[in-house]
């Protein structure tokens, strides 16, 4: 039975890194991965939105491995040197995706009898659209178990991600002399930001960690005028815990901003982009058991993590209410940085853990 050996698995990753794929431009790397998987998965193909889909096995238990093809922009030179593979996406998340693809090729005959493992290389995870994951949940048969390919470290398993929503405040007012006592459009927007920050703090207790708190971040501010009207706006990112849905956040923020508008006498528009709710999975499922025991069998002590970022898990979990974790080699602190790299030994250890976890799910 064909399988990718260690050198082949590293070559697969290097080849993926050599094909840049910022969101919306994944076609070249998608074709590369499809062709690379064709000798191992006869049905390897691209779907309507450009996701790579490949499956192995014909068993009753259906496992989806969903990673993403796209990266944030940026182009650190791809290098393989001294046991390190460096390049955009080495961690987030071509490393985890290629580890899953490599594990897929290594499944035993017994696992192929008992499992159907479907690999999805999704487009546009780094974009607000999450187009690839949304298409996958709309078109693939519902699985029994899902693994999201994101960096957890080879000995870590991610149980959940915070939600997110982006809010834009906008105000306008007739241009007036700055000596006047009335609030300006910019002052109203600044007061609006203060109200959002106060709301975020009110939604968090002192004992709550970052995962269970609302985090508000001022992303950018703009102020200008056209001689008649002064305009001001602010874009605010909110990271949400499981206790606050995007809809609840929007409702409460609209009340808070209405109070600011009333006190300043300046109307403030609130625009809320569609967001994702937080997700936190249980600690003890067939999937977490398989990963914990696989990590121990590979020489590690398993860690369970909750991420303050957001991933395709936020999109997939509500649609597929089955056990789900995120797993992948790599240090998430290197996500989106110019120094993004993965140690070869960790990448290979991650493949071993994935392979063993799948084998355990087949018992």
């Amino acid at each position: 039975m064909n399988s990718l050996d260690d050198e082949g698995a590293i070559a697969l990753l290097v080849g993926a890194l050599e094909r840049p794929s910022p969101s919306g431009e994944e076609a070249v790397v998608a074709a590369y991965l499809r062709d690379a998987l064709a000798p191992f998965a006869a049905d390897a193909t691209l779907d309507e939105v450009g996701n790579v889909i490949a499956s192995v096995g014909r068993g009753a238990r259906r496992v989806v491995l969903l990673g993403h093809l796209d990266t944030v922009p940026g182009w650190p030179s791809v290098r393989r040197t001294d046991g390190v593979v460096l390049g955009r996406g080495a961690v987030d998340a071509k490393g985890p995706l290629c580890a899953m693809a490599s594990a897929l090729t290594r499944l035993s005959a017994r696992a192929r009898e008992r499992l159907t493992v479907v690999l999805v290389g999704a487009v546009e995870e780094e974009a607000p659209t999450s187009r690839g994951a949304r298409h996958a949940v709309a078109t693939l048969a519902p699985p029994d178990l899902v693994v999201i390919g994101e960096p957890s470290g080879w000995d870590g398993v991610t149980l959940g991600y915070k939600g997110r929503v982006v809010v834009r405040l906008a105000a306008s007012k007739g241009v007036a002399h700055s000596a006047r006592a009335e609030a300006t459009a910019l002052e109203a927007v600044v007061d609006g930001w203060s109200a959002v920050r106060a709301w975020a703090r009110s939604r968090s207790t002192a004992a709550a960690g970052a995962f269970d708190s609302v985090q508000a971040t001022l992303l950018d501010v703009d102020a200008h005028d056209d001689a008649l009207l002064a305009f001001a706006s602010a874009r605010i990112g909110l990271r949400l815990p499981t206790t606050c849905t995007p809809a609840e956040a929007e409702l409460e923020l609209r009340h808070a901003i209405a109070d600011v508008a009333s006190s300043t006498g300046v109307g403030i528009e609130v625009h809320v982009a569609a967001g994702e709710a937080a997700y936190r999975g249980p600690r003890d499922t067939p999937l977490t058991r398989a990963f914990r025991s696989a990590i121990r069998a590979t020489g590690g002590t398993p860690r369970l993590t909750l991420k303050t970022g957001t991933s395709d898990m936020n999109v997939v979990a509500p649609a597929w209410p089955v056990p789900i974790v995120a797993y992948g080699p790599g240090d998430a602190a290197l996500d989106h940085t110019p120094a993004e790299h993965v140690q070869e030994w960790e990448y290979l250890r991650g493949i071993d853990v994935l392979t063993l976890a799948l084998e355990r799910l087949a018992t």
Partner: protein
Amino acid sequence: MRETIVTPHGLVDVDPDTVELGELVVTDEGSELEIVGLDPLRFELAPEEEEDWGE
């Protein structure tokens, strides 16, 4: 058949024939243990959840 097993973290009630590697169990003292061996049964404290930045 269920058995009560003594661990350094309290008593745990399990069925050795059905437990799985990686399964979590709670002792009578409230400690959460992970089953890390089946024959013989071995337990370790279950990992706590950590917070981590990023994706």
